[in-house]
């Protein structure tokens, strides 16, 4: 399968590096300023070392990557809120050409789910977005396998940075600011950690899950009124003092930032959970629990972020798609 990769950061770069091992070839890759296109297949190593040395992937205009002859477009540009551009337009341009799109970018799926589904319905191409929720963990595909109409809720730890901070606070008896500084030194938290610690990132993932649950219960696509970040009930972890974790520990519990998605909506906030419960993962790990109609709870855990981890979810999606021409 021929891939065009938009975004050459940790995820896009890892897709370029790993595609060959999955039997695919990358014919184009673009960063925000340039593109490299080779319809015979790009040399991953050459592109990566050029990016490292010069900061750009190639000499072509990014537009050249969108125009390349590919089967699947991989949208891995940074998540943007609101109109979710340029990610949204990148995906619709692929769909207009009856090509598939695989997203690692949460923006278009969380913020414009209805528009995305309508664009998909008008195309021979399909849209998959496993990588947008919990990195390497196959949440969307498990939901599809179980049947989203048979899942009443999805809950879990969906942000590794917040989970790292809370688990270190509990384990070391340290305060939020101290652990956050440590996380920033280690590269676990970004210089501006608000997206993670205020719960926005976890909420976007829950909005995506809530829409999948909602869609499965609707009669037709036009009648789905998508959940959105604006409707979500979101609290972060900034205000949690170390003393809260101490009091929780005395009681055999601890605090985790838990996201909950149901067909009715989204809630994200710090919650008391048993210290040894299935949702109490440590460090940057993620965990997701599906509440199923006939099989109780199904719990999946693993790495929720990282270049190769997220790229593995992208490439699994690519494997689920057949080139339109071969159907």
């Amino acid at each position, binding site marked *: 399968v021929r891939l065009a990769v938009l975004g050459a950061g940790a995820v896009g770069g890892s897709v370029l590096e790993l595609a060959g091992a999955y039997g695919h070839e990358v014919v184009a890759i673009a960063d925000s300023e340039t593109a490299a296109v080779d319809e015979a297949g790009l040399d991953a190593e050459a592109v990566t070392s050029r990016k490292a040395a010069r900061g750009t992937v190639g000499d072509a205009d990014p537009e050249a990557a969108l125009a390349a002859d590919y089967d699947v477009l991989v949208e891995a540009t940074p998540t943007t809120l609101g109109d979710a551009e340029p990610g949204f337009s990148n995906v619709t341009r692929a769909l207009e050409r009856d090509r598939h799109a695989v997203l690692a970018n949460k923006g278009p799926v969380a913020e414009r789910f209805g528009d995305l589904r309508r664009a998909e319905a008008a195309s021979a191409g399909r849209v998959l977005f496993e990588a947008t929720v919990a990195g390497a963990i196959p949440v969307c595909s498990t939901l599809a396998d179980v049947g989203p109409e048979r899942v009443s809720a999805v809950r879990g730890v969906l942000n590794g940075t917040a989970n790292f901070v809370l688990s270190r606070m509990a384990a070391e008896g340290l305060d939020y600011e101290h652990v956050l500084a440590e996380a920033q030194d280690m590269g676990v938290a970004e210089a501006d950690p608000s997206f993670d610690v205020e719960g926005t990132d976890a909420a976007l993932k829950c909005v995506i899950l809530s829409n999948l649950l909602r869609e499965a219960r609707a009669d037709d696509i036009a009648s789905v009124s998508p959940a959105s970040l604006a409707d979500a009930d979101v609290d972060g972890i900034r205000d949690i*003092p170390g003393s809260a974790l101490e*009091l929780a520990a005395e009681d055999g519990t601890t605090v985790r930032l838990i996201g909950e998605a149901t067909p009715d909506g989204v809630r994200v906030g710090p919650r008391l959970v048993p210290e040894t419960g299935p949702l109490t993962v440590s460090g940057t790990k993620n965990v997701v629990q599906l509440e199923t109609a006939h099989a109780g709870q199904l719990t999946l855990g693993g790495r929720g972020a990282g270049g190769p981890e997220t790229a593995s979810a992208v490439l699994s999606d690519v494997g689920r798609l057949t080139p339109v021409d071969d159907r």
Partner: protein
Amino acid sequence: VNVVRAGAERYGEELTVLLVGHVVDSDLTDTLSRIEASTEATLSDLSLSAPAGTDDASSARLRLATRPGRAEATVAAVRGVAEEKGLTVIEPLTEGSA
């Protein structure tokens, strides 16, 4: 949530919540009596931790005994009182609570 004996004949539920913020400065006694007044719950245990003194953010753990099926309403009432007092509630995650 643990089921406990809350009287001679009836069983109740027990739930634990944390209150964080200026728990002491915002008059803890008043907060607790308002919680009891606005719910059918009874405070069965209280732990307070204010390592940086009472002027700084501190935490309280409240164990509330309530009637069966009233846990959700109790948590909602605690949330209401906490909001008025500028405190944050950390609720237990109960299955199916979403």
